[in-house]
C-alpha cells in the first residue's frame, strides 16, 4: 500500500512537538516489567515453609490427643528402633524395617522402587532429606525422587498400612515440592 502521507500535514504534525513520557512513568513501567520477569519461586517458598510448619504442629497436637491409641503410639516408636540399624542395610532393609516384614509381595514392591530410583533418566533434581539415615525413609525418598505419581502411590501405601504419621510427613514434603499438584482426597484423610 502506498504511503498516504502529505508533506505539509506531516510537517505541521511534527511541529506540534515531540513529547515524551515523564521519567517517573518510565520508571514505574520498567519496574513492573522487571517484577514480572523475575522468577516466581520467591514468594511461595516462605509460604510453603509456613504451611509445612503449621502441618507439623497440627500433626503433633493430633498425636498428643490420641494418646495410647495403639496406632498413634507405635508409629513414632518405629524410627527409634531403626536408628540403630547398620547403614549397610539401608536399601535392602527397607521391607524388614517395616511393620509387615513378612509380606513378600510388599518386599517385592519396595525393591522395585529401589531399582527404578536407580534409573538416571527418570531422576529429577535431588531433594534435601531431613533424616537420611533412616532406612524406611530411604525407600520413600527413592519414590520421592522418582515422580510425583510414584510418591503419591507410596503415601497411599503408608495410609493403607496405617502409618499415618509417616504418610502425613511425606505428604507435607510432597506439597512443598509440588505445591500446584492436586492431591487425591483419600491421601489427605487418615
Amino acid at each position, binding site marked *: *500500500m502506498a504511503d*498516504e*502521507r*502529505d508533506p*505539509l*500535514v*506531516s*510537517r*505541521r*504534525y511534527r*511541529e*506540534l512537538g*515531540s*513529547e*515524551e*513520557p*515523564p521519567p517517573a*512513568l*518510565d520508571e*514505574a*513501567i*520498567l519496574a*513492573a*516489567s*522487571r517484577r*514480572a*520477569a*523475575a*522468577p516466581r519461586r520467591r514468594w511461595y517458598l516462605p509460604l510453603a515453609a509456613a504451611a509445612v510448619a503449621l502441618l507439623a504442629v497440627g500433626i503433633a497436637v493430633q498425636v498428643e490427643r490420641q494418646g495410647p491409641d495403639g496406632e498413634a503410639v507405635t508409629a513414632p516408636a518405629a524410627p527409634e528402633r531403626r536408628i540403630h540399624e547398620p547403614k549397610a542395610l539401608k536399601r535392602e532393609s527397607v521391607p524388614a524395617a517395616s511393620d509387615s516384614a513378612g509380606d513378600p509381595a510388599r518386599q517385592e514392591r519396595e525393591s522395585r522402587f529401589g531399582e527404578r530410583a536407580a534409573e538416571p533418566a527418570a531422576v529429577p533434581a535431588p531433594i534435601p532429606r531431613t533424616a537420611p539415615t533412616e532406612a524406611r525413609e530411604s525407600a520413600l525418598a527413592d519414590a520421592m525422587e522418582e515422580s510425583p505419581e510414584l510418591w503419591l502411590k507410596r503415601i497411599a501405601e503408608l495410609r493403607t498400612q496405617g502409618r499415618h504419621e509417616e504418610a502425613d510427613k511425606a505428604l507435607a514434603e510432597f506439597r512443598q515440592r509440588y505445591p500446584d499438584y492436586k492431591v487425591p482426597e483419600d491421601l489427605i484423610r487418615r
Partner: protein
Amino acid sequence: MLAYRGGDGGAFDILYKRHRARLFRFVLRSIPSRGVAEELYQEIWMRVIEARGSYAPKARFTTWLYTIAHNRMVDHWRRSGLSAVSLDDADPPADTRDPARQAEGREALARFAAALEGLPPAQREAFLLHEEADLSVAEIAAATGSNEEAAKSRLRYALAKLKAAADG
C-alpha cells in the same frame, strides 16, 4: 518480545525504549486530558507485560502493541459515552477538551492542533497510527480490527481535514 517472554528482563527495556515516545504521543494526541493519557499509556504497557505469555509473532510487534493501545482507547471512549460504532462520526465530548493545549503555539499550529483534536476518534486514530506509529493501511486495519477499505477511507478523510487546516 519473545526474549522477554522467555524471562529476559533486559529485552523489555530495549522494546520500551524503542516504542515509548511514539506510543506516548499517539495516546497523548488521542486523549484530550494529559492525566488520562498518561494513565492509559501506563495501562497499555501493563497489558503488554501481562500478555507476554500469550504473545505469538504473527505480525510485527508494533502492530501488536498498537492493537493493545487501540483496545484500551476504545474502552476509554466507551466509558466516555461513545459507542464503538459512532467513533467514525462522533466528535470528542466538548467538556473534555483542554483549552490550554489549544492555545499553545502559533496560530497556524494551533489551528492544526485544533483540527487534529476535532477529528472523529476513528479518523484521528488512523492518522496517528500512520503518521506517528508508521503503520501501513493494512496494519492500521489489523490493529483496529477493521478492513483495509475502512482504514484507508478514515485515513483519507483525516488527511483532507488536516490538510485544509494546515493550508489555513
